[in-house]
């Protein structure tokens, strides 16, 4: 069974001035063709305007195998901006994230976003080597309109080839995204 830990995608939110907020991203070590894990800028807008709820929203994943759209560019907004880099095979389907949780951690002085392990059952090797996982807010009740499904963030994972067994992505024990 393939199992990958989504290491911390850490965000430091710094009050840069009255009424403004700047986000600084510390990416993990670069791997493969992608260069960074990112939290897409538009997702900040949707968070700040109460259009994106990381606990109760319908949030789904995409497994990427390519980088032609530079999916780690935080300027992307919607699923169709990066979907050309999504792998394809009959054994693959996007997964809706379950047991989503936001935690305010007094000891570490941060908020953490986590969710249940994301399992792609019996993902065939023909799907291709997975280089990243992206998450997005499904808008409209289905995936039929990718032009309005809002990208949230992307984890640049170690390139991993599926082998036909379950392909599992596991949030880190301190959350998949940290806000501080």
């Amino acid at each position, binding site marked *: 069974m393939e199992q990958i830990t989504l290491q911390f995608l850490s965000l430091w939110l710094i009050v840069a001035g009255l009424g403004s907020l700047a986000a600084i991203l510390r990416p993990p070590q670069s791997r493969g063709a992608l260069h960074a894990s990112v939290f897409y800028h538009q997702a900040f807008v949707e968070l700040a305007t109460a259009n994106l709820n990381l*606990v109760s929203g319908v949030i789904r994943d995409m497994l990427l195998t390519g980088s032609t759209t530079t999916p780690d560019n935080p300027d992307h907004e919607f699923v169709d901006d990066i979907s050309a880099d999504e792998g394809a095979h009959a054994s693959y389907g996007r997964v809706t994230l379950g047991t*989503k*949780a936001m935690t*305010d951690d*007094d000891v570490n002085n941060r908020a953490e976003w986590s969710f249940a392990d994301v399992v792609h059952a019996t993902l065939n090797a023909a799907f291709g080597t997975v280089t990243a996982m992206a998450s997005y807010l499904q808008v409209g009740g289905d995936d039929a309109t990718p032009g309005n499904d809002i990208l949230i963030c992307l984890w640049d994972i170690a390139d991993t080839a599926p082998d036909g067994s379950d392909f599992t992505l596991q949030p880190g024990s301190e959350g998949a995204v940290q806000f501080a």
Partner: protein
Amino acid sequence: MPRIRTQFLGERFDDKTAAIARRRELRAEGKKTAFTEAEIDGELAYFVNVLED
């Protein structure tokens, strides 16, 4: 089955106001806590976990 994470330990509340009140009690006692809002089986639940005495 979702993996049980540390943030889901501690007291569970179905009501957010009650969870916040409990956290304030613990803070008043000088304890550091974690507060979690989670969606479990489609329902919202709230957890207050003492991290340090």
